[in-house]
């Protein structure tokens, strides 16, 4: 990971602290700036804050946030209005910058955000090969399983899905690659920056960046004839309708969802419906461990556990 690229996103005071801290950026997951609060890092499985010369924790100022936003947006916050409305923007390297502040409403519609008081930079960690152990359970020479990856936030769903896409696209072992269509609504999978993927999603992958999942899945099927469609974080009602259309047109689906356990996932009505229809043939559950991407269990379409602790 390019440390300079990350440091240069921040205001000069914060940048200096990051330089002085001598961090291993492969272990750094988040950098949070909140006005008047310490500068928090999610680092090496824990949380820490940066100090000024071993004294008091550095308290982030409004100026730091303003300056950081200038650099993050390339002095052009106006060009990211749509992204800000969704609460985040993507930067070079595939990293995601989440923002919170005072939301400006236009009727019921979010028009923008002002008084931005918190910035959370989530660093993209592409771990090539992390899906190696799950691939035999979801793809054979004859078949690709409809798969749902489930975990609480920050357990590595997106990282695992990214590597599954890459391996399916490039081929793995003695299995040939297939065309994969990715709907990357929040630019997290490919981490596209100005249309160019920053993460490797494979050589047979077509990416619809920043497109709502439901529309994106339909668009891909109509235009790119993918063998596999991959989407991150199913959740809205229209996503589930699009899932049905993907499945009925013969494409295979790999998706992720938030959840803690099979019971909790199936408590959500839409997932319950998909479960009853036996849509997904594999459910991969990730757990909270020291490092992201630890597979706790894989279930088949009947809820039978076929593997644990990968």
């Amino acid at each position, binding site marked *: 990971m390019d440390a300079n690229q990350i440091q*240069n*996103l921040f*205001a*000069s005071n914060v*940048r200096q602290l990051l330089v002085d801290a001598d961090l291993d950026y492969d272990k750094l997951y988040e950098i949070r700036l909140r006005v008047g609060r310490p500068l928090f890092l999610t680092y090496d499985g824990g949380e820490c804050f940066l100090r000024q010369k071993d004294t008091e924790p550095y308290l982030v100022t409004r100026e730091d946030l303003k*300056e950081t936003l*200038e*650099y993050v*947006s*390339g*002095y*052009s*916050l*106006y*060009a*990211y*209005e749509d992204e800000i409305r969704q609460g985040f923007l993507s930067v070079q390297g595939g990293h995601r910058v989440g923002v919170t502040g005072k939301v400006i409403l236009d009727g019921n519609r979010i028009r*923008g955000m002002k008084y931005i008081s918190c910035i959370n930079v989530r660093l993209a960690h592409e771990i090539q090969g992390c899906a190696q152990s799950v691939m035999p359970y979801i793809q054979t020479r004859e078949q690709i399983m409809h798969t749902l990856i489930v975990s609480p936030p920050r357990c590595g769903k997106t990282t695992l899905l990214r590597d599954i896409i890459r391996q399916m696209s490039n081929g793995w072992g003695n299995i040939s690659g297939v065309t994969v269509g990715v709907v990357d609504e929040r630019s997290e999978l490919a981490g596209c920056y*100005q249309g160019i993927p920053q993460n490797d999603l494979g050589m047979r992958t077509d990416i619809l960046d920043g497109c709502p999942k439901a529309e994106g899945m339909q668009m891909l099927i109509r235009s790119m004839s993918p063998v596999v469609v991959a989407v991150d974080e199913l959740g809205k009602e229209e996503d589930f309708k699009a899932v049905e259309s993907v499945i009925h047109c013969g494409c295979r689906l790999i998706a992720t969802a938030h959840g803690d356990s099979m019971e909790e996932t199936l408590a959500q009505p839409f997932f319950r419906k998909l479960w009853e229809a036996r849509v997904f043939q594999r459910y991969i559950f990730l757990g909270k461990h020291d490092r992201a991407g630890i597979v706790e269990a894989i279930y088949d379409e009947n809820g039978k556990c076929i593997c644990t602790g990968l």
Partner: protein
Amino acid sequence: MYRIVGCILVVAAGAGLGVSESIRVSERIYTLEMLLRMVICLKGEIRCGNASLPDAFYGAAGRMNGKYREFLITAADRMKARKGEKLSQICRECAENSLKKSCLTHGEKDAFFSVGEYLGYMDLEMQIKQLSLYEKNLEEEISRLKEEASGKKRLYRSLGILGGLLLAVLLV
């Protein structure tokens, strides 16, 4: 004999000065027209492509030549580098480096150098309006200069020759 040659040289030098001043008027108009073209390109990049400032500068650089292209590329490179500089500082320094030897007046240079102070702030409409305001000022200045140009050029040339003649008479 030497006196006659000297007189001719003095008159020729005066005429040359007049001609060079009249050429500067044309150059000034040309420079302002190029700045206008640059602003139009920037506006187009921002309005049509919702481009960020560095991308708009790169895009516009593709349509410009010489020092104008150099200004746009240098400024965009510095914006992309995110070295902790203010946008106004980047635009001013790059503009000064590229246009310090131009024949624009102090006021015209200052107006151009300070364009960056009003960009990057608020929404898309604000960027377009800021650039439109500068574009309007440039258009007015160009049109005023064009109206005055022929008279001014004639005046500079005549003054040059007359000045040379006067100096020659005084020296003789």
